[in-house]
């Protein structure tokens, strides 16, 4: 009875059959040529993993059915330690944090629902969901709950969870955008069609229409509106259901109720040829709501794509030293004690200690310090920093989620959690309004049931439709979406939902020096000639000739002076400088000790004034000092002036030495500045400002700014900033033109005005329409027109923001974006 089961289909293999396929290294019995062919094709297609992960493995069908019935098995793969390592971080003391990506988050209510639902689960300590990045941080006790159970719980309330890895987030974004566009397209086409029929019906109602034609138009409208309701409006129904399940009234509830009831009533009216049809209102309403949400979502995704997150900054593989061999291993597989090899230009994958070699390392991502840090045997290096000039061997001391880079990210996330959830609050308040509308509709129905039972349903529907909070629910998002889009065109990518709400209240703008006021392009500040017979001009020409053949960032400082001199026999000494012959004379340019070595002399004392000093020397000794420094952005001065003209205080807060900061502040026209501030001091200063009631906009870049960026009321990061800072900031300045900032604040002020106009209109309209509808004075068709018109007014008003112009139109600064450090002082 218990014959061998076919490895592919699970049916018993008949005696004497000799079909088999080699899967995963062993011969598996097959019951028939068909199974043999299928299994063979699967294996040759490289898909034999299927057999490992398919549910209900056919060895013992009964067991597998029992397992799949309970479902957790589906997610069991996420409990494997090596898989967990990709998205779970061990905090110690029986606590772990899982980073999940959650598909299907549409609004603040979802955040609330997920946090409530998961928070109730056994073993879950804390949940933080970010609606704009669709990420959830779940703190759980591994002894009491497994990641797979978290996945199952999320799925159970209607979301699609996935581990938060870069590849996952990208594919999720693509899926969401595609489906949103399809829904929008269907709604748009449907609306256009139905509107045409509706116009005919409106005119028909007033001028008399043939009954046959009217019936025909109604049926066609029904046909066209059906996919709009069933397909395009589905996200609203799904969201409404979710919020109801969480015992919470979101805007989606009356939206769904109105769409659903109006559709049902229109359907009834069409089929039984009685009453009014509302197909055009339903379609139009769906279309406008979808439009607003799609624009908002695209902006959110664009911002998300530009940021990525920490994981993306790290390489995927590391060169591990195994005895005498070098092996490329996945970074996730690195453990403490492994030895890795770092070539020049490699990004370091884990924290470690140098065991061999000497090199300069760019730690700007971690410290904001742009100068290379010299590392020798025994020094510590950190994940996320970039090896500068020569090969290093490193012993891993911390990997994965235990690195300093991860620690900083967690710090940032904590700072983010402290932000007020204005949106969620607004939605909750709206919930009460929604409840009121529903009560009013019921009350109207009951009252009319007594007065004239035949009209009760239509009056109730009129109430629901006419007071449908569409205008209310569109008032804010439409304006915000429109303003967001306009800001994007101006070069400011909005990444945080609260930016437009907070910007108008900003009283002070705080700049961080590096990369915000400067262009990230070095130039010659000063030349000190040490040798008689040399002019500054000649020093420049010679240096330019030496540098002409390197593509080092610092070399750009000389490119403007490229004269008729040419250098030969150029040799680059990594970490030191450059050597070459000009007019038959050997010269060195670079670090003082390196250059002076050519004449076997010791280096002269470096001048004390600002800038980075390079020494030019020949075989007789030092020739000249050249100071390099960064240039102020062309837009900085104008931006500061415009901000101050707009009544804002401008301040410069920097971690650099005072001379450099003073120079920049003076050049940009900033009166208040503070130098040498550590990240902690910056944060303290910021909190002090906030405690005195001031709202602060922080403009920064670099990882050391991030706690400050997150703590500020609003924050803007430059495109040239380290990726991380971008993803935390409320907005990202794409074109580097600082003059966008005052314009953005002006636009935000205007959008606040538009929001209040919209709200006033929507409230006024509802306040007028509701009593009329309750009294039965508004026929349903008028209610429908009123509703459509009221949302149209709101949307058109919001669209005015997208044509926003400022007198001085922004001309993009010609500087190419993307230079992160202000010149790595390495010679590579």
């Amino acid at each position: 009875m218990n014959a061998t089961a076919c490895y592919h289909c699970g049916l018993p293999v008949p005696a004497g059959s000799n079909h088999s396929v080699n899967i995963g290294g062993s011969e598996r019995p097959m019951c028939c040529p068909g199974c043999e062919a299928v299994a063979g094709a699967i294996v040759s297609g490289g898909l034999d993993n299927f057999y490992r992960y398919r549910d209900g493995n056919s060895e013992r069908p009964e067991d597998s059915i029992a397992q799949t019935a309970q479902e957790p098995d589906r997610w069991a793969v996420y409990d494997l330690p090596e898989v967990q390592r990709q998205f779970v971080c061990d905090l110690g003391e029986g606590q772990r944090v899982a980073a999940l990506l959650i598909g299907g988050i549409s609004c603040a209510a979802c955040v609330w629902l997920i946090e409530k639902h998961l928070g109730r689960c056994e073993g879950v300590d804390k949940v933080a969901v970010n609606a704009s990045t669709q990420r959830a941080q779940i703190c759980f006790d591994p002894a009491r709950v497994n990641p797979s159970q978290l996945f199952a719980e999320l799925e159970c309330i209607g979301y699609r969870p996935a581990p938060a890895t870069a590849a996952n987030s990208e594919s999720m974004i693509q899926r969401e955008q595609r489906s949103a566009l399809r829904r929008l397209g269907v709604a748009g086409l449907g609306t256009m069609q139905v509107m045409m029929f509706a116009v005919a019906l409106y005119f028909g109602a007033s001028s008399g229409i043939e009954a046959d034609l009217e019936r025909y138009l109604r049926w066609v409208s029904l046909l066209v509106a059906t996919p709009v309701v069933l397909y395009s409006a589905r996200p609203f129904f799904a969201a409404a259901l979710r919020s109801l399940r969480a015992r919470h009234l979101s805007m989606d509830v009356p939206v769904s109720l109105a769409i659903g009831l109006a559709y049902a009533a229109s359907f009834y009216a069409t089929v039984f040829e009685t009453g009014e049809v509302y197909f055009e209102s339903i379609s139009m309403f769906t279309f406008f709501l979808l439009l607003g949400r799609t624009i908002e979502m695209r902006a959110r995704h664009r911002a998300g794509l530009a940021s990525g997150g920490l994981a993306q900054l790290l390489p995927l593989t590391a060169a591990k030293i195994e005895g005498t061999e070098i092996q490329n291993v996945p970074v996730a597989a690195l453990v403490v004690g492994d030895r890795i090899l770092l070539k020049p230009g490699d990004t370091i994958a884990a924290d470690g200690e140098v065991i061999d070699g000497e090199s300069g390392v760019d730690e700007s991502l971690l410290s904001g310090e742009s100068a290379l840090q010299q590392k020798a045997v025994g020094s510590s290096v950190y994940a996320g920093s970039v090896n500068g000039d020569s090969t290093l061997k490193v012993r891993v001391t911390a990997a994965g989620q235990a690195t300093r880079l991860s620690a900083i990210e967690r710090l940032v996330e904590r700072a983010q959690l402290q932000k007020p959830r204005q949106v969620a609050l607004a939605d909750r308040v709206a919930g009460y309004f929604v409840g009121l509308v529903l009560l009013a509709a019921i009350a109207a129905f009951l009252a009319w049931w007594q007065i004239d039972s035949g009209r009760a349903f239509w009056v109730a529907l009129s109430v629901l439709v006419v007071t449908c909070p569409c205008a209310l629910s569109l008032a804010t998002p439409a304006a915000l979406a429109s303003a967001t889009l306009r800001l994007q065109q101006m070069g400011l990518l909005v990444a945080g939902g609260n930016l437009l709400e907070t910007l108008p209240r900003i009283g002070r703008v705080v700049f961080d020096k590096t990369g915000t006021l400067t262009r990230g392009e070095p130039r010659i500040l000063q030349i000190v000639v040490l040798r008689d017979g040399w002019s500054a001009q000649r020093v420049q020409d010679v240096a330019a000739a030496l540098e002409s053949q390197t593509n080092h960032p610092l070399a750009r400082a000389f490119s403007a002076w490229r004269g008729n001199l040419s250098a030969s026999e150029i040799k680059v000494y990594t970490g030191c400088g450059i050597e070459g012959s000009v007019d038959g004379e050997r010269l060195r340019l670079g670090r003082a000790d390196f250059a002076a070595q050519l004449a076997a002399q010791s280096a002269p004392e470096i001048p004390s004034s600002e800038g980075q000093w390079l020494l030019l020397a020949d075989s007789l000794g030092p020739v000249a000092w050249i100071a390099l420094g960064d240039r102020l952005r062309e837009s900085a001065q104008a931006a500061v002036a415009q901000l101050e003209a707009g009544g804002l205080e401008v301040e410069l807060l920097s971690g650099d030495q005072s001379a450099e900061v003073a120079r920049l502040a003076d050049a940009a026209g900033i009166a208040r500045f503070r130098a040498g501030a550590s990240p902690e001091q910056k944060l303290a200063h910021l909190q002090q400002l906030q405690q005195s009631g001031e709202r602060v906009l922080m403009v920064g870049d670099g990882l050391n700014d991030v706690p400050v960026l997150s703590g500020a009321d609003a924050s803007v990061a430059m495109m040239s900033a380290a990726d991380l800072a971008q993803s935390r900031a409320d907005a990202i300045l794409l074109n580097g033109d600082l003059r966008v900032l005052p314009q953005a604040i002006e636009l935000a002020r205007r959008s606040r005005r538009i929001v209040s106009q919209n709200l006033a209109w929507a409230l006024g309209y509802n306040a007028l329409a509701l009593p009329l509808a309750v009294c039965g004075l508004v026929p349903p068709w008028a209610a429908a027109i009123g509703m459509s018109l009221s949302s149209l007014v709101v949307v058109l008003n919001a669209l005015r923001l997208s044509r926003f112009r400022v007198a001085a139109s922004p001309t993009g600064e010609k500087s190419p974006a993307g230079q992160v450090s202000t010149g790595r002082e390495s010679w590579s």
Partner: protein
Amino acid sequence: MGDWGYLAAALAIGFLGSSHCIGMCGGIAGALGMAIPGQKTAWGQLVSYSAGRLGSYTLMGALAGALGAAALPALTPLRLAAGIMLIAMALYIAGIWRGLVWLEKGGAYLWRYLQPLSARLLPVQSAPQALALGGLWGWLPCGLVYSALAFALAQGSSSGAALAMLAFGLGTVPAMFATGAAAARVRGFVQRPAVRLLFAGAILLFGCWTIWGALGHGSHGDHGSAPAAEAVEEHHHHHH
């Protein structure tokens, strides 16, 4: 109703017979990466894959039907053969007699040439790929398809046979679309010996009816299951 009878029969054969292949093909969506547990099912690909498969079946039917039309005088023996094939299929499904394996082995020769083509399409990443793959995999060596083909061939016309195969293919669609947890549950159900026997019995009945019809009894019968050459011709007029 007569003209629909043979289509309904083909549909039923496909549906009942897929209990045989649900283990083989039901999980295929998962194997092809179109319905991996924990990820969203790629319905577009699944539909394309099925469309490709049905296309191949229809083509097979058209070819077999043309053959049948050419051998029109021998239609009665053909129908007898089809009935015998169906009975063999029923015995195969019930696990009583596995004579059809020999036919499948014959089909495996053809498959040897097609399989390398299909390997190039794996893993499936787009709907057109899935369509092509479905088209290829329609030619998998499968006793069920061969029985249905014999049944279609006995319709005596190319278009009638093509339609019959299309109907047969549609009957197998539910099994193909059962993915993930549902597949496991459905599979567990249909692979129970009692269920298999029941399905096998139904197909056995179809085989008997086909033979009954071939012997000149069922051509004017009002039970829709028995195929009839006249019925096919009628159908022809309705649809062309």
